[in-house]
């Protein structure tokens, strides 16, 4: 029973949930797997931390929570500080390289890779697509899901008229990820 547990964390407004949702959708609809996404709000509906828990599995998923993620996707320092202790030994951390400073706080045996997602997004013309860059980066580094599945999931999920921009962002992250993954 292959099962991968992912935690995506960041701040409200960064598109954290959508990032998790695209991963889940890619797996569940286009990747032939089962996936469950749990959104976690902070105690306040507004202005606070925000995270998504994604379980991707070959089998039906019962318990849907991610207690000890295999993979962390982190877009803020707060999220980094909060979730690093939960990471599975030997797990993987993907982070926004300009907003998160691992600063030696990484447990041993953990693979950590950064991507300047916000800068890439700004370069593409819209800061907002930073989460799609992260998705691409995730896909590129982990190889958990076929690129096509992720591509379709992105197309399904973004507002009409923004497809091209988003695919560019995806590709950018993906390519950057592939390089790192080597």
């Amino acid at each position, binding site marked *: 029973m292959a099962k991968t547990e992912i935690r995506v964390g960041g*701040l409200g407004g960064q598109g954290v949930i959508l990032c998790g949702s695209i991963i889940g959708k890619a797996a569940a609809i286009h990747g032939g797997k089962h996936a469950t996404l749990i959104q976690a709000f902070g105690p306040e509906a507004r202005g606070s931390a925000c995270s998504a828990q994604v379980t991707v599995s070959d089998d039906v998923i019962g318990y849907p929570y991610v207690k000890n993620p295999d993979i962390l996707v982190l877009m*803020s*320092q*707060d999220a980094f500080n909060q979730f690093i202790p939960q990471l599975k030994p030997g797990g993987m951390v993907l982070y926004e390289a300009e*907003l998160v400073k691992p600063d030696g706080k990484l447990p041993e045996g953990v693979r950590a890779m950064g991507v300047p997602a916000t800068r890439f997004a700004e370069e593409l013309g819209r800061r907002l697509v930073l989460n799609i860059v992260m998705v691409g980066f995730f896909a590129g580094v982990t190889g958990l899901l076929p690129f096509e599945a992720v591509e379709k999931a992105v197309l399904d999920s973004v507002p009409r008229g923004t497809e091209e921009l988003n695919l560019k962002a995806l590709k950018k992250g993906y390519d950057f990820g592939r390089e790192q993954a080597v």
Partner: protein
Amino acid sequence: MSDDQQRKGRGTVFVKEEVCKGCSYCIDFCPTHALEFAREFNAKGYHYPVLGRPDDCTGCDNCGLYCPDFAIYGARWKDIDEKKKAK
């Protein structure tokens, strides 16, 4: 601001950088356009205001009246000095 510091305008501002959410109210509604965004982020990732043109600050506290986060206020040197003395 210590006494020794250069006093350029008629007043100055005090900023609580970590409380600021970078909304730009203070900057846009400063009557003399004395404020500007810092290049740095605070911990939450927001740019906060700095007194870019200290010469122009009158200490009118318009920034303080507008700030939705209570993160900034202005004061005249005159009043600051009085406070200091009163201490």
